[in-house]
């Protein structure tokens, strides 16, 4: 059995640079959830010259909106949502220092260009494996936009959240490469 590659956040530029599209890894440490409504709010804050709800340096944003936590549990089921809906916002957030994104599905050219420009990375978690991923979460706390319910920004502490490098810092895209390999 191959040893698990564990990445502890915040991720340094060096760690990001070494990761290659298609590699499996496990993320431990703090990740921040933000999806559609939170992205719109962060975008509006930026337009107004206001600070972001968390420090972007080395931070990982997880495109996810969890189920409610059962009593005694930190969180309910939590898997990734479709990242493409955040493509409109991602380049501007990357200009502010955000480098690590976790989600699922395809990204547009602007996002991939931005990943290359800033030396960022896009991880995919397995869509729909949400009960299993909920078990990776050790604690969760809402840190911004509480009124958004499931779409609020949460600070999660995760242990070995399973991910795959979908787009690496050079712009190599696992979705394209994987599909080409098995296309008949």
């Amino acid at each position: 059995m191959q040893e698990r590659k564990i990445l502890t956040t915040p991720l340094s530029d060096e760690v990001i640079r070494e990761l290659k599209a298609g590699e499996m890894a496990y993320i431990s440490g703090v990740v921040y959830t933000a999806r559609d409504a939170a992205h719109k709010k962060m975008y509006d804050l930026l337009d107004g010259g206001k600070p972001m709800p968390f420090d972007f340096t080395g931070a990982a944003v997880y495109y996810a909106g969890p189920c409610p936590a059962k009593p005694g549990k930190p969180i309910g089921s939590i898997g990734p949502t479709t990242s493409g809906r955040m493509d409109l916002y991602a380049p501007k957030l990357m200009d502010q220092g955000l480098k690590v994104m976790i989600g699922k599905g395809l990204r547009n050219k602007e996002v991939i260009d931005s990943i290359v420009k800033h030396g960022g990375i896009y991880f995919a978690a397995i869509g729909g494996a949400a009960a299993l991923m909920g078990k990776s979460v050790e604690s969760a706390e809402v840190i911004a936009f509480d009124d958004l319910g499931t779409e609020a920004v949460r600070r999660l502490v995760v242990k070995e959240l399973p991910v795959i490098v979908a787009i690496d810092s050079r712009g190599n895209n696992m979705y394209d490469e994987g599909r080409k390999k098995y296309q008949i």
Partner: protein
Amino acid sequence: MVREIQSGKITDLVEKLCIDANCNLTGDIYQCLRSCRVAEKSELGKEILGTLIENADIARRETAPICQDTGMTVVFVQMGQDVHITGGSLEEAINEGVRRGYEKGYLRKSVVRDPLDRVNTKDNTPAVIHYEIVPGDTFHLIVAPKGFGSENMSQLKMLKPSQGVQGVKEVVINTVSEAGANPCPPIIVGVGIGGTMERAAYLSKKALLRPVGEHNPKPELAQLETELLEAINKLGIGPAGFGGSTTAMAVNVLTYATHIAGLPVAVNIGCHVTRHAEGEL
């Protein structure tokens, strides 16, 4: 003879089915994931299918939602014309069941009250309800909460009659190809052909309810389903979209009479969970 059904019983049933559909993967899909794992050509694909099976096991054991997107609640009501609902409106009884099921089951509330102002209703209501009135005094419900990762990848085209079955195939394959990794493959593809625009869309959603492995009773449509499934699995999209030989588990086609001038085709994509649960009163 009119048979009376208490609206409270309908609420109880909807509540139970909301939780059941979201936490228990149906046996047909579960078995299909297992056989797909054996047949899958990509090692990473096999691993992902294994993870999905493990996830379904955890969800069932803990009564936890399989996926955090517990959907917009679509309810198919098939009601005998000799049934009389007492104690309140049928629609409100169903919505109350959704409200209770989503609260009690710790399911995510994903519905906004208006598509443009986008304020969350915080109880997952209202449901999308389809009514079908049939002879007799039966009352049958299917609760099919629909996740939007796959719903957003669905398409509808109004083809010309001259485009025929070839045109239909192109629409289905292009829809799945463009969707790529987004709808959480391996997917189930619901195809509605004919009727009017809204009838085709309704059929494509209804087609998702058919158990994996069963085919349309018409041999030519069963053949079309088989051909489409083969073509889709040659696209290479694979489990979670990382490449592989398992992109779809099933293609289910339903048809209806249509107009001399038209050939509507709707493709509704269901993810690898494609939740649904049914019950009767």
